């Protein structure tokens, strides 16, 4: 595809790489919203990002921000600011960089799956859910107008192994969740951290939409876990994400349909319904199903 003309989609800071991905003196070619881009690391490690023209030459330079163990850029003139997630600055947190996972579907399907508790028992069986405890209890959603974010609160779900640390104990727990949709292309959750009563693990998901149906998903985490190895925590998250990918790449259509009755939600989908309404209100067209694209 060619670069989108959708200004709502363009005006976002989107991940394009993670620190350490591009070796010094090397370049990494990728794509953002249909636009080929090149991330380069100079001999001193300084990063730069440029648009790549059709003839392969580099065009205009794009701005970069390093945050949440990721590298963000934007094609827009007036991008929505990156969210605040103060947990990433707390000195005793383990910041886990899980790299990225390629997922061939619409970015919104990936966000929606991240918000969804009802699939835990079936897709993450015996880890994030158990087949004999499938009920999604009533929770709340709200549009936080101060942040212009969608929040889901009072969420809870029984989990046999909520995290790497929890897996190692063999005991299930009622996990409490709070979800934040921080932009059209990013979402995070706070969840019960094993051994902490008053603090929560923070797990983000930032999506790089390469095209309308080809994404890279980056799940950086700020965890309260002094025990697990870094490799163990990364492995846990990647296991979960690869289970999700089987689902995500087999939803039809890949583009998110917002037309009435195209898909039927139930009460457990309250956060998905709020997110879809917010997508509609944003005016974005990129990545949405349209009859002529069928």
């Amino acid at each position: 595809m060619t670069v989108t003309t959708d200004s709502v989609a363009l005006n976002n800071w989107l991940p394009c790489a993670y620190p350490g991905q591009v070796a010094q003196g090397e370049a990494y070619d990728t794509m953002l919203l249909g636009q080929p881009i090149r991330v380069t690391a100079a001999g001193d490690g300084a990063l730069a990002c440029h648009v790549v023209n059709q003839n392969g030459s580099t065009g205009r330079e794009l701005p970069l921000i390093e945050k949440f163990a990721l590298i963000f850029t934007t094609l827009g003139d007036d991008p929505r600011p990156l969210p605040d997630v103060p947990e990433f600055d707390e000195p005793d947190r383990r910041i886990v960089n899980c790299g990225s996972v390629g997922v061939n579907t619409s970015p919104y399907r990936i966000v929606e799956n991240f918000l969804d508790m009802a699939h835990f028992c079936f897709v993450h069986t015996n880890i994030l859910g158990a087949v004999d405890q499938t009920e999604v209890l009533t929770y709340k959603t709200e549009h936080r107008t101060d942040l212009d974010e969608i929040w889901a609160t009072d969420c809870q779900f029984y989990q046999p192994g909520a995290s790497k640390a929890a897996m190692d104990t063999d005991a299930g727990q009622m996990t409490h969740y709070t979800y934040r949709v921080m932009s059209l292309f990013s979402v995070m959750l706070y969840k019960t951290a094993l051994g902490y009563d008053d603090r929560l693990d923070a797990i983000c998901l930032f999506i790089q939409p390469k095209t309308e149906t080809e994404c890279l998903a980056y799940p950086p985490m700020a965890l309260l876990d002094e025990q697990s190895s870094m490799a163990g925590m990364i492995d846990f998250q990647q296991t979960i994400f690869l289970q999700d990918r089987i689902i995500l790449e087999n939803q039809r259509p890949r583009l998110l349909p917002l037309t009435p009755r195209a898909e039927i939600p139930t009460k457990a989908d309250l956060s998905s319904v709020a997110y879809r309404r917010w997508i509609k209100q944003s005016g974005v067209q990129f990545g949405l199903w349209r009859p002529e694209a069928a």
Partner: protein
Amino acid sequence: MSDPTSIGNPWVPIGLETQFPVSSAHPVIANGEPLVVWRGEATGFHVWEDRCPHRGMRLSFGFVRGDTLTCLYHGWRYGSEGGCQHIPAHPDLEPPETICTKIYASTTSHGLVFTAPAGTEAMAETADDRSWFAVRSIFLDLSEKAVRERVTSAPTGLADAAFTDAAGLLVAKVADGDEIALAIQPIEAEKTALHLSTTIADPEARMNLARRLLRLRQDLESLGGGT
């Protein structure tokens, strides 16, 4: 209404019966439509749109228990008539009747499975109580039209007698009163399947037929475009 000049229309063959074991779900494509074919313990074959009405997950990834099909994503369970019976996220809720998959008609004949839009008039019955056996299927990068023209206009090497249109498929007589049936499945514009079945009970003779079908594939692929 069916068009008598167009063989197989509106009933489209989607495979050999033996290709779909009881208690399993499978993806097939007919005329560009992604379908799930699943086979219940008591209710036989079911053909639906390959899509859960909830969040669009392909139902061919789901699992069959008894005479229900359950979606892999959220465990929504559908009965043999397509209605949702159970939503695990809300175990005490009786799902509204509006939650229903898009269902197609299905039938079996000559050892083959056929589908058609819901409400289609039943396939013409043949006065045939012989057993039919699967031979095999082949898949071609050719249009249905090209395949049909080739197998109806020149010798196929499968039978000495010519094929005749019978109840939506091509049938030819072979030795000892036995018959073979060839069904043409339009998959997509340039993708077509040929399914072969027979009344011949001798496994050795059926193996021989399968080899002849592979030679026919070589012939068809030399028509061009084939890989």
